[in-house]
C-alpha cells in the first residue's frame, strides 16, 4: 500500500461525493421554479443514499468482481470478502477505498438523471427508477468498461466516465423525459428561480471534478496532476466559449450560460482526462461548449422533449464527444500519451463502445420506466404539479419570506 496514493484517493472520494451533495443538488435546484426547490434537493439526497446501499448489497460485486464479459459475479455480495488489509489489484490503495471511490460514481450517475424529470415526477418513481437503473444499466456498463468486461477487452478508452457516467445518464434522461411527458406549460415555463445557486453548484462541481478525473488515476502522481490540469483548462475554455456564443447571439453573456459551459467542458474532458495534454484539454473544452450549446437547442426545439435541465444536451453529448474525439487528441502537443493502436482503429472502438452503451441505456431505461409506470405511476397529478412538488410531495415550502 502507498500512503500517498491512498491519501489522494481518500480526498478524491470525498470530492466526488461533494459533487452530488450538495454541488449537483444546488446546480439543479437553482434551475427549477421556487415551488420545486426542495423536491430536487431531497431527490439528490435520496438517490445518493439508495445508490450507496445498493452498491454494498450487490452493485460493487456485479460491477467489479469476476471475469465475465457481460457482468461480474456474486462473490463480493454485501462486501462479504472485504478485509482491512486488502489491496485493490493493479493499484497501491486499499480495496475498501476503491469500493468507496467507485461508490461515489455510482451515486452521481443516477443523480445526474434527476435533471430530466424534475418538477413533475412522483417521488416513489424517482426511487424505483434510480434503484433499478443503477443495477440494470450502470452496473453492467461499469463492468463492461472498467471491470474487465467486453468493452475493456476491445480496448475502449474511457478514463473517468464519458460513457460509463455521462452517456448512460444522458440517454436515459432523454428516455425518461420522453415517457414522462413535458411539464405543464412547456416550453413556456418560469425561468430558473435562483441563478446564483446554479453558479454555486457548478463551481463546486468544478472543484469536485478534480477528484472525479484526477482521482481516476487511482494514484497520486504525474497522471493525476495532468488529469487535473487538463480538466481545469477544459472547463475554463468551455466557459469562455459558451459566454462568447451567447454574447454574439443575444448581445448579453449570462451567468447561467457561462456555468453551463463549465459543466459541458468538464463532461467533455472526462473520458480523455487521463490521456490528453493541456492543448488537448483546451480543444476538448472549446468543442464541448459549441456542440453542447447546439445539442441543448436540438433536444428542446428539435425533439421537443422536456429534458428539463439538459442532462442529455450537456452531460450525454459532452461525454460522448470527448470519447469520440480523444483518439485524435491524445498525442497532440506536450504532456499527452500514445494510443495502443492506430488512431482510426481506436476511433472505431470508441464508436462501437458508444453505440453499445447508448443502446443498452436506451432500451434498459425504456423497460425500467415501463415497469415503474405499472408499479407506482410516473407523474404527479396536474394540480400537484401546479402547486409544486415541495408542498405536494414533501409537505414543505422552500422559502418563507416575510411571513
Amino acid at each position: 500500500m502507498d500512503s500517498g496514493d491512498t491519501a489522494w484517493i481518500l480526498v478524491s472520494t470525498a470530492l466526488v461525493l461533494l459533487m452530488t451533495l450538495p454541488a449537483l443538488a444546488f446546480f439543479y435546484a437553482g434551475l427549477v421554479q421556487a415551488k420545486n426547490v426542495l423536491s430536487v434537493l431531497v431527490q439528490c439526497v435520496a438517490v445518493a443514499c439508495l445508490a450507496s446501499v445498493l452498491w454494498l448489497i450487490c452493485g460493487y460485486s456485479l460491477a467489479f468482481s469476476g471475469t465475465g464479459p457481460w457482468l461480474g459475479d456474486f462473490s463480493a455480495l454485501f462486501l462479504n470478502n472485504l478485509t482491512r488489509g486488502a489491496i485493490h489489484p493493479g493499484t497501491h490503495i486499499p480495496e475498501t477505498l476503491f469500493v468507496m471511490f467507485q461508490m461515489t460514481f455510482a451515486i452521481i450517475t443516477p443523480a445526474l438523471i434527476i435533471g430530466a424529470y424534475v418538477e413533475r415526477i412522483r417521488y416513489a418513481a424517482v426511487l424505483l427508477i434510480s434503484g433499478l437503473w443503477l443495477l440494470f444499466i450502470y452496473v453492467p456498463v461499469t463492468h463492461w468498461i472498467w471491470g474487465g468486461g467486453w468493452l475493456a477487452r476491445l480496448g475502449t478508452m474511457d478514463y473517468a466516465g464519458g460513457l460509463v457516467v455521462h452517456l448512460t445518464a444522458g440517454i436515459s434522461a432523454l428516455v425518461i423525459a420522453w415517457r414522462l411527458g413535458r411539464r405543464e406549460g412547456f416550453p413556456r415555463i418560469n425561468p430558473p428561480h435562483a441563478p446564483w445557486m446554479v453558479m454555486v453548484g457548478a463551481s463546486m462541481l468544478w472543484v469536485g471534478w478534480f477528484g472525479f478525473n484526477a482521482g481516476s488515476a487511482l494514484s497520486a502522481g504525474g497522471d493525476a496532476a495532468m488529469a487535473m490540469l487538463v480538466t481545469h483548462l477544459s472547463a475554463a475554455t468551455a466557459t469562455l466559449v459558451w459566454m462568447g456564443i451567447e454574447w454574439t447571439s443575444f448581445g448579453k453573456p449570462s451567468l447561467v450560460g457561462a456555468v453551463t459551459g463549465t459543466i459541458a467542458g468538464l463532461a467533455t474532458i472526462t473520458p480523455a482526462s487521463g490521456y490528453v495534454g493541456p492543448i488537448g484539454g483546451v480543444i476538448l473544452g472549446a468543442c464541448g461548449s459549441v456542440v453542447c450549446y447546439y445539442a441543448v437547442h436540438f433536444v428542446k426545439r428539435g425533439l421537443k422533449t422536456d429534458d428539463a435541465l439538459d442532462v442529455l444536451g450537456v452531460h450525454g453529448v459532452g461525454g460522448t464527444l470527448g470519447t469520440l474525439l480523444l483518439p485524435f487528441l491524445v498525442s497532440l502537443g506536450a504532456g499527452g500519451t500514445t494510443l495502443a493502436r492506430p488512431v482510426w482503429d481506436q476511433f472505431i472502438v470508441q464508436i462501437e463502445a458508444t453505440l453499445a452503451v447508448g443502446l443498452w441505456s436506451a432500451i434498459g431505461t425504456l423497460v425500467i420506466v415501463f415497469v415503474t409506470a405499472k408499479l407506482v405511476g410516473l407523474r404527479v397529478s396536474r394540480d400537484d404539479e401546479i402547486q409544486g412538488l415541495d408542498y405536494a410531495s414533501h409537505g414543505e415550502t422552500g422559502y418563507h419570506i416575510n411571513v
Partner: protein
Amino acid sequence: MKFIIAIIQPHRLDQVREALLAIGINGLTVTEVRGYGRQKGQKEIYRGAEYSISFVPKLKIEIATADNRATEVIDAIQAAARSGKVGDGKIFVLDLEQAIRVRTGEANEDAL
C-alpha cells in the same frame, strides 16, 4: 385629503424620496410590486431559451397628503421618476376620507 399612489421604476426610489423630502413630505410607504403596462414585460434568456417575464418588478409608493399640497407632490414624483422611456410608471390620485394617527388618535390632516 388626497391619497397618491405612484408606480415607479425601482431604481428611481431614492430620487423620488429625496424630491419628496425636499418639499417637506415626511411619510411614505413603499411596496415591491409586479405588473405590466405598455412595457409588456421583459425577455430573459437562459441556456439560449427565451422566457418572457409578463410581470416586471416595480415599486408602489403611497402618500397621504392635504388637498392643497397634492399637485406639488405629484409634480415632484413625476419629475424625479421620469426617464422618458416606456416603463416609467403611473401616478394615481384618490380622495382620502379619513386619516388617524394610531399613537395619539389625532385625525385627518393633523395625523399626516
